[in-house]
């Protein structure tokens, strides 16, 4: 380590690895998840323009066609068709829109509600805190899926009901974590000085505290997105989610169940789609967590 050769060797080695390890892990944007999610986002937004076929159109002449790389497959129907002749690829593209719509709507709804409750609870304190936290605990202890199923059965399957149900069940997780953040910030100097400048409680909560918990909120939301999509897929799979004929990945997986042995592609492609989106959002959320707050404790 002491002669010039060793110095330059070290410098070379260090430059090659892009300096000390923790920094390297955090610096580079995780391109794979970002690209995958962007692709699905494009599908979600512009779906109707890029589907090769009408996803709702049935064509009994081309039922159960295998993907293009198999014998009897057709390049026109790249991923094959289902049991009533609908193009799988087109349905996956449209389904992306459904899944992502539901996903974003739920995380925004649950996140906003959770953040609001966390702010009121932690900043106002006292009995408001006690009551709100007991309610939060109640929601956290509920068996999510079972209640979702029950509510969906009662309310009937529809996209809006799905969003509503998952939003109502999902805010508690955000509230708990964000409450911790707010509590920590409550005694910071800049809050005290805002009070000295005669800022009222509302101003302090929304102009001082909230902007500083947005980072955590975004990380939580990104990590939750995967969960929501799985949940929505599960509900659709059970027939309680987005109703047909609107293509939802979950119901596509359900549809393919019956003819699995003969037409594996009908449920495999939507399954892979779910896998890719959930994994990507988890990886992105993890990276965001490290990037935005290396001292992140709660998760």
């Amino acid at each position, binding site marked *: *380590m*002491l002669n010039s050769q*060793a*110095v330059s060797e*070290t*410098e070379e080695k*260090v*430059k090659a690895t*892009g*300096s*000390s*390890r923790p*920094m390297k892990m955090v*610096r580079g944007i995780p391109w794979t998840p970002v690209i995958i999610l962007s692709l699905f986002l494009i599908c979600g937004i512009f779906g109707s323009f890029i589907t090769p076929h009408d996803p709702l159109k049935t064509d009994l002449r081309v039922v159960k066609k295998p993907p293009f790389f198999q014998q009897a497959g057709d390049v026109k129907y790249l991923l094959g068709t289902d049991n009533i002749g609908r193009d799988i690829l087109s349905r996956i593209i449209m389904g992306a829109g459904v899944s992502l719509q539901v996903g974003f709507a739920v995380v925004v709804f649950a996140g906003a509600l959770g953040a609001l409750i966390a702010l009121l609870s932690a900043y106002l304190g006292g009995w408001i805190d006690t009551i709100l936290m007991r309610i939060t605990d109640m929601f956290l202890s509920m068996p999510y899926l079972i209640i979702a199923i029950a509510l969906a059965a009662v309310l009937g399957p529809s996209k809006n009901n799905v969003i509503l149900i998952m939003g109502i069940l999902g805010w508690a997780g955000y509230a708990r974590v964000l409450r911790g953040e707010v509590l920590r910030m409550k005694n910071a100097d800049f809050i005290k000085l805002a009070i000295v400048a005669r800022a009222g409680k509302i101003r302090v909560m929304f102009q001082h505290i909230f902007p500083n918990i947005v980072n955590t909120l975004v990380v939580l939301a990104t990590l939750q997105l995967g969960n929501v999509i799985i949940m929505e897929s599960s509900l659709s799979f059970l027939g309680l989610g987005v109703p047909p004929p609107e293509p939802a990945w979950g119901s596509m997986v359900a549809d393919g169940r019956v003819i699995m042995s003969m037409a594996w592609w009908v449920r495999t492609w939507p399954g892979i789609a779910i896998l890719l989106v959930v994994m990507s959002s988890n990886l992105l959320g993890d990276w965001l967590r490290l990037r935005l707050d290396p001292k992140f404790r709660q998760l």
Partner: protein
Amino acid sequence: MNSNDTILAVQDLKTYFYTSRGVVKAVDGVSFELKKGETLGLVGESGCGKSITCFSIIRLVPPPAGHIVGGKVLLHGEDLLTKSEKEMTGIRGGRITMILQDPMMSLNPLFTIGEQVAEPIRFHQRLGKFEVWEKVKEMLRLVHIPSPEVRMREYPHQMSGGMRQRISGAMTLSCQPEILIADEPTTALDVTIQAQFLSLLKEIQEKAHLSMIVVTHDFGIVARICDRVAVMYAGKIVESAATRELFNNPCHPYTVALLNSLPKMEVKVDKLYSIDGQPPELHALPPGCSFAPRCPSVTGICLKEYPSQKEITADHYASCWLHG
């Protein structure tokens, strides 16, 4: 007490940190000598490299970013930078010890005071169980902890900041080290406690024939307990001299500015001298003298070449183009 033996000689020490923003030359060619029984003050502001210099001496520079890339650290002529890690663990705590700034952090909250003072004794010396405890009590008495037999069984949280710092002192002294490095030892202490602790340090130094390196940003501490001073800026020593000589005759513009910018109890001034600008970014140092951008006496050559060290008067060195 002050003999002419040099027990520690640091020669052209360089410690660099490789970060994503570039190479930070935290210590960039630092040389000084420590004589037996002497107290050397390393003074400078945050980021000047004084703490890293000390960590480099005992080879505790944090990897993977930090590397000691050059120089020698000679303890009685032996270069510490070439020693194995095993040999260094024998030296750390044994021959060279360190007190850190925050007494809360230096002590383990889960172990009693007695246990913690005993640990270095058990590691470095072969003593029987009873002898270890006697030594612990002796150390606690040395640092003026009252009723050591009782205090030994207590935990750090039951003690005040001043007492914790004294216990840190006891831990470092238990193995009769030759050199004590104190890194901002009183920054977290109250004024009266600080004064007592500094007196204690001096007392221990005399009793144990210690040589000390005191790292601080406070010239008051330097004035109180240091025999020699080295002023650091941006990883280099810009001036070094005997304390009295430095206060009476500061040569480097940074030293001059710093001394003039301090409010003094004894002299009333209307306006303090203030240095323009900010301390430099260590990964992007300007060419030439690092202090040039803020120097009131800057000249052309200052911006091009770093001045070499010159002896101004006996044992008074400075690196400045104003002085040759």
